[in-house]
């Protein structure tokens, strides 16, 4: 019952008028970010971080706003899946299968409303799961020593690519690059490392500059290359005629999808894409021949959409309790926590209880806000879809410039950001994932600190790193995370491709 008390306190924080206002603003901005072409959730949250600083927000307010942005972006992503058959991000892929056929049949607004309800249920289920699971996991994590943490960080890197990842070795390369960048600056013993005598590098490289550069600037360059400057054709949205029966029909699918998605989100290496994929496949199995999946079955929209949103809330569990994010967007949220001087991990639940529970409560409130926002305002978001990227992306780039400039008012940071953008473009061309680089930047200092502590305890004996059962378990899972993609990955990827291929041919 302790949890309940904390949660009520959390609601007290989240319902404070200014926090509520920022949550509403975040939810709106987030949906916008999710709906706009070429602005993924991680990218959008990254650009907003420096702005949250310039506003001088209190830590809990900043975190509440950006959590709402995060939740909102997941809602927004489905709009382009349904109306244009273009998934905003990978997890939204499965929503296209039945969402786009529904839109073609003139039921676009029903599909949007159903997906909003399903997203809401998925997030709600997963947030309740988060409330129940997070304190338990945090208590458990208190038993971790430095050696276990070191192994846990390795596990995080190893599973980041996910089981469906293509080439795990490239994840390793990316992680190493990120960790290397994190060693630049003056270390804890006062030694300068890789600063080349440049004053600006003494404090290390600000990861927010790196994140905004890698995501936002490289996105601009990609759009220029693809010449995707023009807008997408407008999709007519009919008048909504949704009955309670329709909603009742999709409820079981949404609950199943939410639970599955939550599990996929919590587990390292599964991720939201797998969550929505399993959500969809299970729906097909459960409903069986009575359904008309691939041809606009509402349950085919509800299942994966709930799974997708469930996974994104589930992904917050390892981020909050262990300080180890499992996805790009949660990595960006971790960046925010670190720059607010809050150390994520089990201690956060005791030391910053008001912030943690405020955020969790904000997630619940944010979901209600999003549901309320989404059904009447969907017309506005649909209009935004037709904003051509050729106007949008330069403006987004400009906002990134303003945000980075406002952190320290130096031009040096801007050059750095552009350099990271060019590097990010090259990495993406080489199919080197960007998220491990960012995770390396974020976790590098903690990882080195834990290594030092472990070695101090053991007096220089390296075997301490795999001396406890827990540590060995983590090492084994990390190993599996790198090896399994070679074995299971091709099979799973083929299945996902078959499912999406069948769906799009069925819609023709």
């Amino acid at each position, binding site marked *: 019952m302790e949890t309940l008390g904390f949660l009520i306190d959390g609601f007290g924080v989240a319902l404070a008028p200014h926090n509520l206002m920022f949550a509403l603003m975040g939810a709106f901005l987030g949906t916008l970010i999710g709906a706009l072409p070429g602005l993924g959730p991680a990218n959008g949250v990254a650009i907003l971080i420096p702005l949250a600083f*310039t*506003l001088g927000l209190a830590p809990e307010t900043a975190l509440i706003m950006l959590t709402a942005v995060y939740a909102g972006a997941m809602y927004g992503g489905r709009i382009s899946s349904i109306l244009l058959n273009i998934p905003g991000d990978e997890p939204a892929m499965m929503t296209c299968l039945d969402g786009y056929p529904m839109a073609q049949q003139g039921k676009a607004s029903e599909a949007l409303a159903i997906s909003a309800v399903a997203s809401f249920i998925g997030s709600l289920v997963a947030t309740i799961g988060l409330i129940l699971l997070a304190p338990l996991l945090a208590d458990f994590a208190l038993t971790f020593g430095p050696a276990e943490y070191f192994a846990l960080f390795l596990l995080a890197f190893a599973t980041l690519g996910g089981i469906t990842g*293509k*080439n795990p*070795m*490239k994840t*390793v*390369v990316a992680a*190493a*690059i990120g*960790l*290397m960048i994190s*060693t630049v600056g003056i*270390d804890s*013993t*006062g*030694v300068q*490392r*890789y600063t080349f005598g440049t004053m600006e590098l003494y404090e290390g490289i600000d990861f927010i500059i790196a994140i905004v550069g890698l995501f936002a*600037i490289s996105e*601009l*360059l990609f*759009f*220029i*290359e693809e*010449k995707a*400057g023009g807008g997408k054709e407008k999709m007519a949205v009919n008048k909504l005629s949704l009955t309670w029966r329709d909603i009742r029909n999709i409820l079981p699918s949404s609950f199943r999808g939410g639970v599955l998605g939550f599990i996929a989100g919590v587990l390292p290496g599964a991720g939201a894409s797998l969550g929505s994929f399993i959500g969809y496949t299970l729906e097909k199995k459960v409903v069986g021949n009575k359904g008309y999946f691939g041809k606009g079955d509402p349950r085919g929209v509800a299942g994966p959409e709930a799974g997708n949103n469930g996974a994104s809330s589930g992904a917050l569990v390892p981020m909050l309790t262990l300080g180890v994010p499992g996805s790009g967007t949660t990595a960006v949220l971790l960046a925010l926590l670190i720059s607010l001087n809050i150390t994520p991990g089990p201690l956060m639940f005791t030391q910053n209880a008001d912030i943690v529970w405020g955020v969790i409560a904000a997630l619940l409130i944010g979901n209600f806000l999003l549901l309320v926002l989404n059904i009447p305002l969907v017309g506005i978001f649909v209009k935004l879809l037709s904003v*051509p*990227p*050729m*106007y949008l*992306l*330069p*403006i987004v*780039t*400009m906002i990134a*410039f*303003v945000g980075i*400039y*406002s952190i320290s008012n130096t*031009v040096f940071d*801007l*050059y750095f*950001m*552009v350099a990271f*953008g*060019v590097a990010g*473009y090259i990495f993406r*061309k*080489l*199919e*080197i994932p960007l998220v491990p680089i960012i995770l390396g930047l974020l976790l590098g200092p903690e*990882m*080195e600190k834990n*290594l*030092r502590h472990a*070695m*101090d305890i053991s*007096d*220089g004996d390296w075997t301490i790193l795999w001396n406890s059962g827990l540590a060995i378990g983590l090492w084994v899972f990390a190993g599996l995370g790198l090896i399994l993609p070679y074995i299971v990955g091709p099979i799973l990827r083929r299945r996902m491709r078959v499912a999406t291929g069948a769906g799009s041919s069925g819609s023709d």
Partner: protein
Amino acid sequence: MTFNDRIFGVLMLVLAVAYGWGASQFPEPFGGAESIGPETFPYLLAVVLGLSSLYMMVRPDPDNAWPWSRTGLELVVAVVVLLLYAGLLQPLGFIVSTALAVGTLCWRMGAAPLKAYATGLVSGVVVFLLFSFALDLSLPLGVLSFLEVS
């Protein structure tokens, strides 16, 4: 073709060796050496990056095409615009440099020139006003500093 991964692998191997060598040059920390010095963690990273870059050279993935010719040039133009934007932000001021940078980018991405620069100017003015008055944050005025109201 599998040149990309091989070349990148070679570059990363060079980086790993240089990084590892750099770590061996660190001065001993004040107070004497400990079991873990400032160079230990970098050594580990250099080994990991070295091994994984060797793997990339041995088992490269198929290449993605690079945009040579016109599109490549457009990319170079975009990067130059961004660098100039960063460099001119303070001397020219936020509004003028934004109008030029955003305008040029919009134009190069396919908008009509007049509309492009109008977008740049309007967005620059709006963001400037928003930051100066609503958020109380000063962006440089540059050549427009005669407009300053104090």
